[in-house]
């Protein structure tokens, strides 16, 4: 990095908002994925105008820029693949406006997801998208990745809850798209930018919809002696047209790890559990809970428990949302995959994942959003063993390919990032890429924003990716 760029950054936002020493930068070279890439400098702007000036400076020095929230992403979206300037939004973390009357909040990108709910829950409102990392992930990151979570089954993902964005383009121009109401005549630009993984613009302000808390909620824990029974239950819940607010599955191997850590009350001797939540008006909830229980019993659930109070419900969800932390006790590292399948194909998909695990010598755990077919197989491995690492990558590739074969998709909520960009040709043709590239170039013509993400760098999917990842062994030991 040019010394003059550092000087200019220091003078622009103050040296206390700039990191450039190696020992500082290493903290920003990884995220929640298995990828790794180090920025040349990390900056912490406080305002949109500062972001704009930083971006202009980057253009002047021809260095790339990547935005980052709290770095909990799972596809390398917030890693500086091309080096350059990393803009961390941690200090743009103010809630700018709460309009409770109209159920809207205007926030800066560095606001933590759960903090929005905390700020409005006194009025019976909350922010619906609830990724497992919601205690630490930021709304800016949620917008970039179009994050989901357990309750998106009923309420939709981030894009369904964003009505307006303020953006900074690579030339520093500040643009506002959408509106507070959300129904803006013209192209759905919010729909385009949410989920564009920071490759089109940097997001500096977000207007979100707030959701009214349901009148009633019931959380059911269904316990099964076989994974097949649990997955057939999910398929039938969908087929019967029951739409729970959440329908999560945890297999036995994973729930035992959770139980050792969280003590959530998951039975250690079961093969799988389903955590199913129904909510809405009292009468609807009662009927849905009965229907869900009926399906569970039809598929030989050993037991169906209904959380008797908020404390028990919270404990069940704590077990689900802290699962990845629990798995950290079992192996030096884990690789959380993210694939989507048509929901009716769940039983065969889980069988295939198990077979692929055996082929590569891994026990693959499953803890995932079963209701919308969003799989999260977890591969435990030791990154210090290059062979294990390569096998983990190969197994993951095989699983994602299988998802696509079943009519599914590469990613349901983690994003493509630099994890799956080489797998994109499994779904998209040259014409598809050409159009996506034209849209990309219309906003980010020099690829100065978050380069090396989403689009495949090579046509031969996989080989180059494996090499790059092996070079970037994670430091999570």
């Amino acid at each position, binding site marked *: 990095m040019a010394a003059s760029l550092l000087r200019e950054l220091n003078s622009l936002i103050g040296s206390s908002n700039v990191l450039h020493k190696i020992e500082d930068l290493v903290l920003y070279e990884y995220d929640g994925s298995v990828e790794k890439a180090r920025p040349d400098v990390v900056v912490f702007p406080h305002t949109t105008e500062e972001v704009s000036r930083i971006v202009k400076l980057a253009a002047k020095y021809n260095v790339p820029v990547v935005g980052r929230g709290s770095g909990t992403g799972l596809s390398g979206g917030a890693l500086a693949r091309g080096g350059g300037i990393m803009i961390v939004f941690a200090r743009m973390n103010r809630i700018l406006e709460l309009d409770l009357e109209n159920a809207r909040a205007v926030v800066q990108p560095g606001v933590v997801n759960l903090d929005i709910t905390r700020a409005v829950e006194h009025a019976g409102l909350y922010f619906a998208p609830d990724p497992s990392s919601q205690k630490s992930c930021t709304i800016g990151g949620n917008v970039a990745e179009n994050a989901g979570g357990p309750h998106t089954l009923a309420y939709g993902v981030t894009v369904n809850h964003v009505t307006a964005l303020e953006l900074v383009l690579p030339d520093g121009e500040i643009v506002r798209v959408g509106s507070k*109401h959300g129904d*803006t005549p*013209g192209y759905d630009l919010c729909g385009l930018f949410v989920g564009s993984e920071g490759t089109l613009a940097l997001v500096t302000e977000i207007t979100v919809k707030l959701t009214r808390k*349901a009148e009633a909620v019931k959380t059911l824990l269904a316990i099964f002696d076989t994974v097949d029974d649990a997955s057939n239950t999910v398929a039938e819940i969908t087929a019967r047209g029951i739409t729970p607010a959440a329908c999560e599955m945890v297999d036995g191997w994973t729930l035992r790890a959770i139980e050792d850590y969280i003590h959530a009350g998951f039975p250690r001797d079961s093969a799988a559990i389903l955590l199913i939540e129904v909510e809405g*008006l*009292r009468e609807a909830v009662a009927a849905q809970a009965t229907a869900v229980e009926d399906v569970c019993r039809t598929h030989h659930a050993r037991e169906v428990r209904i959380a008797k109070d908020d404390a028990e419900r919270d404990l069940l969800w704590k077990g689900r949302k802290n699962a990845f932390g629990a798995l950290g006790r079992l192996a030096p590292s884990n690789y959380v995959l993210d694939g989507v399948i048509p*929901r009716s194909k769940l039983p065969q998909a889980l069988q295939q994942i198990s077979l692929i695990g055996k082929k590569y010598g891994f026990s693959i755990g499953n803890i995932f959003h079963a209701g919308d077919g969003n799989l999260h197989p977890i591969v435990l491995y030791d990154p210090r063993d290059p062979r294990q690492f390569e096998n983990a990558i190969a197994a993951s590739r095989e699983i994602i390919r299988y998802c696509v074969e079943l009519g599914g998709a590469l990613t349901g909520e983690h994003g493509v990032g630099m994890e799956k960009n080489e797998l994109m040709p499994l779904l998209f043709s040259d014409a598809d890429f050409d159009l996506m590239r034209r849209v990309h170039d219309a*906003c980010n013509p020099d690829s100065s924003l978050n380069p090396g993400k989403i689009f495949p760098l090579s046509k031969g999917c996989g080989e180059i990716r494996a090499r790059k990842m092996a070079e970037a062994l994670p430091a999570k030991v």
Partner: protein
Amino acid sequence: MTATANLATRLESVLGAHRVVASEAELCEYAIDSLLPGAIVRPATAQEAAEIVRFAITEKLAIVASGSRSKLHLGMPPARYDLALDTTAMHDLAHFDPADLTLSVGAGMPLRQLSKVLAEKGQFLPLAVPCYETSTVAGALASGIDSTLRKQYGTARDFLIGAEFVDGKGALCKSGGRVVKNVTGYDLHKLLIGSLGTLAVITRLNFRTFTLPQTHGGHLACFSNLEGASAYRDAIEKSGLALANLETLSPEMVALTATVLRETNAEFVGRLDPTQWCVYASFEGNEAVVPRIARDLQKLANEAAAADSEILDAASDAHLGGVLREAFDWLRWTSPSVALFRIALPQSNPGDLADLLCVAQESALRGALLVRAAAIIYFVMLAENEDESALRALENAAARVFSLAAAGQGYATILHAPSKLKSRVCVWGPKRADLGMMQRVKHSFDPHNIFAPGRFVGGI
């Protein structure tokens, strides 16, 4: 040989004669504000649609795609209109996976026909749009027209999961997929919603479907003034009651609605008082939920001092709900000159509504309001003749409506207006700050500017 006949002949050489029409009578059916296309093409496959687009690029022809043409007049008249691309021959049901609640359907599939297929499996697509009996699935989507089920099921962006289309380079493209959760690549299919055919020719759409509710209910509450109706509506919103639809009708709108209803349910019309503000709610669910919502609405109406309120019988509910769903269609023909606005304000307060009615009154026009779910306002101004003074009154009033919307940090568009008014007033309202970004998107999709040029926001 005329230019039109020549164009048709050249198209026939590409597509075959059976896919091309150029008779004067049929061309008239595709007219947009008295503008006729040079020829009509009806591709039966996405590949044929792509061939047409490539032909248009080579020949520098402008294409306007349409389905049943019920909303062909939305937006500005196109600057050029060489080819009418009729999508109705692309009407296959490529996939319907009832167990997954997903479907993939050809652009030209009529909504009514699709609803029959889905209903056999106890499912439906919540696109309750006007002109429902004729609308095609892609037409409903590309028009961006409001569905009266929006309050419960959201807009198309909430359940469209993928699309296939021909871009402006003549290439077959796709976005999204056939699964209900997917963040693979850019969500380009969302851009097609409400784009009025200015980005691509839609050939297939993938949706998430929903289970048909066990039963429905309807409720009507009438108030002597706007404040009472608004207070009742606020109380409903705060109650958390799950409603499928919620609409407020101004007294003039009640009168207009009664006129239309008279044809289907004369007995019910007698119960509609055209001096009152009426709030109509519809809801659905199981046998326990529906009566409970009805009871709660009765209670809220009483607490808000409604002059009258009633739980509607199934026939009255179906008739009133159906007529309101079709409001966009029939409101256009309620007087010789009609300007129908759609206004989205971040907050809907009685003062804004009163201001709108004031605009009509001060312009010596009849004004009527239909406040729809999600704070979408349909505001219609009616002139009693088509002369210059009527046009001038509508023109001046339109400028004031756009100003009021802007002052309230919202947006107004004109859904319908006489052609002569559209030549004086841009239906999209004043220039917007995000126009540059929209132009970038347009150019990415349609670099040769062949898709409905000039029809969209800011002359796109």
